[in-house]
C-alpha cells in the first residue's frame, strides 16, 4: 500500500514536460477545495498537465493494473493453472473485439455509458467459453492445452481486431492501441468506467479467497469440505472476466500483468489467496504504473505502447514459469 502511494507520487512527477516534484505537490494541494488559492503561481498549462493529464492517467493505470492483477489471480486460482491470465487465456482479446467494434463503428453509446464494458464482457465471456471448448478433451483440461487454445484464439481475435480497424478510417494508431494497449489520451471519464467494476470485483474475489485455497487441493477435496464447486467456479470466472473487460475497454490489451503479479506476490507472501487477492490488486496497480511511466519517458516525447513494456517484462517470466513446470518443480499453486 505504501509502495503504491510512493509509486503514484513518483510517477506523477516524471513526465515529458518537466515540472518539479514540489510543484506537482503544490498543484495537487491547491486542488483541494478548502485550500485558499491566493498564492497559486503555476500556469494554467502546468495545472492542466498535472490534474487532467497525469493524475487521471495514473489513477487509470492503477485501476487497470488492479483489475488485471485480480483477474489473473482469479483465473489461476479457479483453473488451478499457474500459466493462466486474461491475456494467455484470450479473454483480453475477446473483450477487445467487442470494445473495438463498438468504438470503430460508432456504436459506443447504444446502451448508454455502460455499452462498451458490457459488450466487452459479453465477448470476453464467449471467448472464454470457446477456449474451454477447444481445450477440453474427455472432460479434463490439461494446463498446457488450455494455454495453447488461449493463444490460438487470442491471435485469431487479434487479427480480427486489426481487420476491423483497417476497415475504419484512422488506422495505425488504433491497431497499436488495441493490440498493445495504452493509457495515452485518457480522461476522467475512463476512470469512472473502470472504478465501479473494480468495486464489484475486488470484494467478490476476496470473499472467495478461502474457497480458492481449498481449490488448490483439488475440486473434489473442495467439494468434500463443503464448497459448492460449480457455483464458485462460475462466480470467480465471471468476476475475473468482468474485471478484464473493464480494463480492456479503456486501455486495450495489456498482456502478462495478471500472470506476473500474482506470482511475484506468491513468492513474497505464500499461496494463501486471502492475502494473494488483495495484494495482487495493489501489485497490479504498481506494476502498470511503473510500466506506463517507462512507456511515457523511455523515448520521450514519443511513447512506447504500454503492452510492449509489459510483454518485454512478462514474456520472459512466462517462459521461466513454463521451464520450471517442465522440470517438475511444482508448488506454484
Amino acid at each position: 500500500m505504501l509502495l503504491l502511494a510512493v509509486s503514484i507520487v513518483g510517477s506523477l512527477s516524471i513526465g515529458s514536460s518537466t515540472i518539479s516534484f514540489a510543484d506537482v505537490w503544490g498543484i495537487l494541494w491547491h486542488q483541494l477545495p478548502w485550500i485558499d488559492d491566493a498564492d497559486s503561481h503555476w500556469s494554467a498549462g502546468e495545472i492542466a498537465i498535472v490534474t487532467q493529464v497525469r493524475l487521471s492517467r495514473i489513477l487509470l493505470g492503477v485501476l487497470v493494473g488492479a483489475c488485471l492483477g485480480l483477474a489473473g489471480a482469479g483465473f489461476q486460482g479457479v483453473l488451478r493453472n499457474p500459466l493462466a491470465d486474461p491475456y494467455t487465456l484470450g479473454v483480453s482479446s475477446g473483450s477487445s473485439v467487442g470494445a473495438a467494434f463498438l468504438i470503430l463503428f460508432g456504436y459506443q453509446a447504444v446502451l448508454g455509458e455502460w455499452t462498451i464494458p458490457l459488450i466487452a464482457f459479453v465477448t470476453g465471456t464467449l471467448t472464454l467459453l470457446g477456449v474451454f471448448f477447444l481445450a477440453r478433451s474427455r472432460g479434463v483440461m490439461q494446463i498446457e492445452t488450455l494455454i495453447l487454445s488461449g493463444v490460438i484464439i487470442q491471435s485469431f481475435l487479434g487479427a480480427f481486431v486489426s481487420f476491423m480497424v483497417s476497415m475504419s478510417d484512422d488506422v495505425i494508431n488504433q491497431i497499436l492501441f488495441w493490440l498493445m494497449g495504452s493509457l495515452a489520451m485518457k480522461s476522467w471519464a475512463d476512470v469512472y468506467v473502470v472504478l465501479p467494476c473494480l468495486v464489484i470485483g475486488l470484494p467478490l474475489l476476496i470473499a472467495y479467497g478461502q474457497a480458492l485455497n481449498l481449490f488448490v487441493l483439488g475440486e473434489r477435496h473442495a467439494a468434500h469440505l463443503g464448497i459448492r464447486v460449480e457455483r464458485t467456479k462460475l462466480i470467480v470466472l465471471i468476476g475475473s472476466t468482468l474485471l478484464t473487460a473493464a480494463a480492456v475497454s479503456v486501455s486495450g490489451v495489456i498482456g502478462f500483468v495478471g500472470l506476473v503479479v500474482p506470482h511475484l506476490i506468491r513468492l513474497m507472501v505464500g499461496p494463501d489467496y486471502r492475502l494473494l487477492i488483495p495484494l495482487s490488486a495493489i501489485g497490479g496497480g504498481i506494476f502498470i504504473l511503473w510500466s506506463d511511466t517507462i512507456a511515457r519517458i523511455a523515448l520521450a516525447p514519443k511513447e512506447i505502447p504500454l503492452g510492449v513494456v509489459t510483454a518485454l517484462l512478462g514474456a520472459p517470466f512466462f517462459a521461466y514459469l513454463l521451464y520450471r513446470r517442465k522440470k517438475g518443480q511444482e508448488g506454484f499453486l
Partner: protein
Amino acid sequence: MISVQRMSKKVNGRAVLENLSFDLAPGCIHGIIGPNGVGKSTLLQLLSGVMKPSSGEISLAGVNMPDYSRKALARRLAVLQQGGLPPAGFTVRQVVEMGRFPYQNWFGDEREDHSSLIDFALDSMGLTELSNRQLDQLSGGERQRVALAKVMVQEPEVILLDEPTTYLDIGYQVQLLDTVRQWQRERGLTVVAVLHDLNLASLYCDQILVLHQGGIAATGSPAEVLNAALIREVYQTEASIVSHPLTGTPQVLLQPKKQETVRLFEKVK
C-alpha cells in the same frame, strides 16, 4: 446411519448401479469390495453427496441428502480420497486447518478457538515435526497422513475412505487403517471404506458389502461373506480361505490355475 433406498445410477446412459437398497449401521466399519469397474467409487461418490443418484434416495442420519447444505453435510461427513493430496505450496498446518472450513463463516472466523484440535490431529498423525513443511516437500505416504489429519479436524460422524491405501506400502497401509480404527472406536464413528485388498477388508471391517454386476452380491460380517464360492462368482478366480492365526478372521489365499499348480508341485518333489 446411511440408508439407501432403491437407488440407481446411470453414467453416460449406462446403468452402473441398479436398484440398490441397504442400510449402514452407525458405529461400525463397513467395507465395500468388488471387482474393477463394478461402481465401488461411484457408490462412494453417491454416498458423499458430490454425485446425485439417477433415481432412488440416500439419507444420512434420517435426513435426505439433497436437504443438506454443502457445509452442513461437510460437518457430518468427511472423505479421504484415493491418492491423497496434490503437491501444493501450503504448509502441513495450513492444510490441516482447511478441515475447519465447514465451521467457518464468510470471514473465515469460528466462534471457538480450534488450535488445540489441530495440534491434537497433527500429533496423533505424527506430523508435529513436519507442521511447517510445505506439502510439495512431503512423500506420498506423508501427504496421505496430512489428508487424514484434515479429515480428523473436520470432526465428522461419518468417514468415507476411497481406496485409501492404494499408493501406500504395506507398513503405511496397516498404520493408516490402525489409526482410522482407533479413532473410529474412540468416537463411535461410522466408517465406509472402499477397499481393493480383501485381506485388509477382512481384518478391519465389521461389515462387508460385495458389489457385483451393478447389484449387491452379499452383505454380512467378513466370516459370513468371504468364502470360496463367492470369490469364484464375483472375481472368477479360485481362492483358498484360511483363518488368520491371530485374529481368526478369514484371509484369502490366491492360487494359480490348476494344471500349473500340479506341475509346480511335481517339480518340487
